[in-house]
């Protein structure tokens, strides 16, 4: 009986009912996120690196400035800036490949069909084409501010790689994808 009384939820119920309700909502939200694999803030799920991966071929985007100076932000403690440059670029590239249609658009439309009460929010789930078209000038502006004021040209390349027999990456080809003057 003493063990039961020491339980966190029992203490909450006895001493702080609002917290008890919040904790129950939180547990329910987390269970829903786990069941549907759809995460929504603040009901986070932490499933990263839990799947079986086996990569043989891959590609990544790289940025060269002015006369070919490589922007190398790998393994940096400067992660927020790296995200602002490379994560946004990755999203832009995926959208550009898809004729400037945000990959989330279709998935969000399916959710709105399944849950009509969410349809008023659905159009805020994805970026419209205009935003994609404004991206490259923004990238230059941000890099001008956050990387180097002397930036005049930016060239973005896609590097196609494969992993050798020793499992090490090797670049097969490099293709110029975008150029910002």
């Amino acid at each position, binding site marked *: 009986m003493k063990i039961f009384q020491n339980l966190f939820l029992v203490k909450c119920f006895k001493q702080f009912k609002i917290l008890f309700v919040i904790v129950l909502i939180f547990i329910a939200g987390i269970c829903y996120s786990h069941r549907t694999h759809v*995460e929504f803030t603040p009901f986070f799920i932490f499933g990263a690196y839990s799947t079986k991966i*086996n990569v043989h071929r891959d590609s990544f985007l790289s940025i060269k400035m002015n006369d070919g100076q490589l922007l190398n932000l790998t393994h940096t403690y400067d992660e927020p800036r790296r995200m*602002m440059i490379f994560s946004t670029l990755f999203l832009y590239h995926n959208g550009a490949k898809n004729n400037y249609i945000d990959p989330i658009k279709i998935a969000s439309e399916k959710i709105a069909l399944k849950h009509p009460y969410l349809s008023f929010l659905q159009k805020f789930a994805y970026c419209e084409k205009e935003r994609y078209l404004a991206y490259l000038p923004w990238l230059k502006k941000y890099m001008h501010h956050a990387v180097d004021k002397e930036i005049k040209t930016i060239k973005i390349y896609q590097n196609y790689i494969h992993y050798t027999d020793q499992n090490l990456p090797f670049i097969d080809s490099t293709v110029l994808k975008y150029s910002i003057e």
Partner: protein
Amino acid sequence: MNNTELNRTHFARYTYGFALLIIIYRFFSFALVHQLQTPVLFENSLDYTYWLFHYLKIPQLLLYNKTTSILFDTWLFLSTLYCFIYAARYKLIVLLNAISWSCYAIFYNSFSCHHNYTIIGVMILPYAFMVKNEIKFNLVWGFYRDLNLYILADAFIFKAFINKNIFYTRIGSEIIKPNQSIYLLQTPGTWLTKIYSFFIQHPHLAYTGFILMVFMQMLCLIGFFTKKYDKYLFYIVIIFHVINYFFVDVMFLELLILNVTLLHKKNTAIEKYFRYNKNRV
């Protein structure tokens, strides 16, 4: 002795002190709202909270012009500093500051096009100081402690029971490989490159490392049943994120703000400092 014996004032100082460091760090990383140069692309994924955030037009409000974004960042800094100095004494300031941190975190994650977990600590922890009553505060603090442990414990549950990759012996090198391939190609010849290449070429050693990491995550489950081992869990969480940073190139150190919930009377210098000052008073 357990962490509930430390009072709200000390936790507030630690939390808001850490939050101030996060603002300074993000300022030098060009990631505060006024430094983002009015970003255009966002990723809201299937997160309804992010959809609602955009529906309420909060990004437009913050990015209305340069002045509003500077005002927001200034408010975030000053209100955090205020809560640090006065140990979160005024509820209204605490609430507005907590909402501002939540807005900043969602804003940054949305416009950086990556829902990064590193910022979620400072996004949720300030709400704990809305409670002033010591008994109720200790309960809220206990909830945040469990939340901190849940982060790593849930990662363990995913690996062991949901996606079940802990018996996949190539997983260690397969995780390092794509995360470090750009570094290996762009920065050849460094000592880190040699270390990564070694582990990638020796999958069983990398797998051993992976299992050790999963073991550390599993240990966090113990924390749900007892507070006796909090002093060890405190360091385990730090070690986990530091190893993650070196091998997976994921910078989660800002998330360590939640680690204050595991503080034990004798295990940090900052607590010794606060106890010393309390004794002097």
